[in-house]
């Protein structure tokens, strides 16, 4: 990706999955690259369990903190249905979808009022370049389920033209000191996943 042009990224998932933290790290990394950065969170009431989406934009000069539909370069989703929900944000051509290989049924499905979309992976594939990431499995290997978000961010980082230094110092400024080490290795695991 060329850095001067505005890059648009949507990060989405279920409340409690660490979406806000991942978007903070991404913003800080772009900031460390000396770019103009804007981020906006969209989430409803409760602490947990609702659909959460953040918009991240960076480039030479950014005005709106919200991205228009059809203009997103990357969707980074922590859950498949949430990727599906925001697919129309993706640009027509060359859009990339990075998705955690996880399904969390919403309450409407749990109570039997609705159904989880069938063949969801296939549907995602129709919309753009799909990367299905076994982030939960990788996090288990790291013995910490809370690193899923940073693993996924590591995958995203391989598409962006940022220096490793920018990422690592972003992780340091967003994460409590005693967890930095763990998260840097989670991030590097994510990077390696793309290459595998």
């Amino acid at each position, binding site marked *: 990706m060329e850095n001067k042009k505005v890059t648009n990224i949507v990060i989405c998932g*279920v*409340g409690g999955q660490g979406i806000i933290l991942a978007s*903070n790290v991404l*913003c*800080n990394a772009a*900031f460390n690259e000396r770019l*103009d*950065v*804007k*981020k*906006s*969170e*969209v*989430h*409803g*009431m*409760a*602490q*947990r*369990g*609702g*659909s959460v989406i953040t918009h991240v934009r960076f480039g030479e000069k950014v*005005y*709106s*903190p*919200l991205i*228009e*539909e*059809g203009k997103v370069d990357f969707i980074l989703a922590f859950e498949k*249905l*949430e990727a*599906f*929900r925001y*697919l*129309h944000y*993706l640009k*027509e051509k060359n859009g990339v979808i990075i998705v955690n290989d996880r399904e*969390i*049924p*919403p*309450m*409407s*499905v*749990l*109570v*039997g*009022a*609705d*159904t*989880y*979309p069938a063949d969801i992976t296939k*549907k995602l594939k129709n*919309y753009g370049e799909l990367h299905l990431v076994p982030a939960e499995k990788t996090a288990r290997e790291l013995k910490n*389920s809370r690193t899923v978000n940073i693993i996924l961010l590591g995958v995203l980082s391989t598409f962006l033209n940022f220096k490793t230094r920018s990422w690592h110092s972003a992780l340091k400024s967003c994460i409590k000191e005693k967890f930095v080490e763990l998260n840097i290795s989670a991030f590097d695991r994510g990077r390696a996943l793309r290459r595998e």
Partner: protein
Amino acid sequence: MKRLLSGNQAVARGAWEAGCNVAAAYPGTPSTEILENINRYPEIYTEWAVNEKVALEVVAGACFTGARALTAMKHVGVNVAADPMFTMAYSGVTGGLVIVTADDPGMWSSQDEQDNRHYGRHAKIPVLEPSDSNEAKLFTILAFDISEKFDTPVLLRLTTRICHSVTIVEFGKRKEHKIKGYVKDIKKRLVLPAHARIRHRIVEKRLIRLSRYSDIFPYNKIEWGKKSLGIITSGISYQYAKEIFPDASFLKLSFTYPVPIKLIRKFARQVKRLVVIEEGDPILENEIKVLGIKVTGKDKIPLCGELTPKVIRDSLKRPYKRTKKPLRAPARPPVLCPGCPHRGVFYVINKLKLTATGDIGCYTLGALPPLNAMDTCICMGASVTNAHGMEKALGAEFSQKTVAVLGDSTFYHSGITGLVNAVYNKGNLNLFILDNHTTAMTGHQPHPGTGRLAKGEAGKRVPPEDIVKGAGVEFVKIINPDSLKEVEEAIKQALAFDGVTVLIFRKPCALLTKPKPPFRIDPELCNGCRLCLRLGCPAISLTFPKEKKRPLAVIDQGLCVGCGLCVQMCPRKAIVLSKEKENGK
């Protein structure tokens, strides 16, 4: 130095740089993080007040001594604080006083969409509207200056999109503000009619001076582009409009009440077509129309809901072709957390088919399926008074099937007065205080029932049961909501009691407690009856295994916090402790 900050963090930084001495607030999305961040600065005294009116009156007292003081609230919070706010315009301030209103267009977490710029006009106080975090910081500082210069409170108006967007902020140093000390001046501060009549004239004269100041305010500025289209805009709408019309001429307003009349005339004269792009009500539009200037505004741009670049593009017919349509995806509304202490109470309310008047907080979610346990939700404290009013209309018999439900923080906010009212007026109110020891929905702020203060040190605990008893309630019980049977028995007793009853269901918020080992469902014992699903715990779902003829309930081991509520639901005793954990793995 530059940093990335949210609008809320930037306001806190601005308050600090401006030398603010005292801050008070009641949490409310999207304003909460303002006080949370001010709290981090040891130079500023901060407190969580029990409600917005109290918070404003506290900072008003501080500014009377010459201190710089700030309060922040969500838009509906200003309704609560409106009483002192209007009079503060008359009394003036001495030390700078900034009132932050965080409006919520789109109602991401609110019960209405009011545009609080109206309050500036109505209360006759100036309004500033930042359009990103850097301006949020800057305008906070300027708001203190304007407040002192013109001896008036200043309304700093943010919206959710400003509060919760992160943009780059340029840092400055703190300029210490020396508190002058209190000087008695009853003509200003003792607002009895004789004094107020004189003050009203001063307020009107001040508005004329403020209007002139608006014309020279450096952040009300023209950005010339093509003169075929001139856009007048403010706040976040400026950023959206810039995105959609990069070539147009702009008059960006930041000091939006009173409006800069000369500047608007100058701009309008030089452009061919004039459009006002503003979120919410046509406030700027009407001010401009009154000047006799023709503009396009709310005839094209929607008044309801949040503006976005797309909404502006569509409404002003700048179509942008695309073929992808949103797909139909099952909704994912927020839910009560796994292990939430409120779940069992709502389950029993639903089971007993009670009418429940509700309130604002996590427990509002008890209204959603499958719990379906609430009938009304109007504003903070209205659970109590609504139930009382229903009883007075329909008689005591009705109250035997009616309960009012509110949280501990809300009880302090505005439940107490309603309770006293019901006791005094011989009501048969059944009040449930869902006491989870915190203000959960906004992110766990302390309140008098926690005995902790804003900066974390110990304060004095004011237990709700003492207040309730002090108000004259004879039937008061404290119940642990872990046991559905006990919850049901207590509720039945309360309903049968003649007079006001208060049940305090006490158990800390699930997010503040350490999870216990998870439960799992034995596939041999589960017959797929779905009874456990009635609790609406997000950890429990139904699967349809191919090898089995019937559906099977399963518990997500990552989500379950082991509260044990669902165990009480299963007639076949299929919900058991997970094996691995039993073996200590």
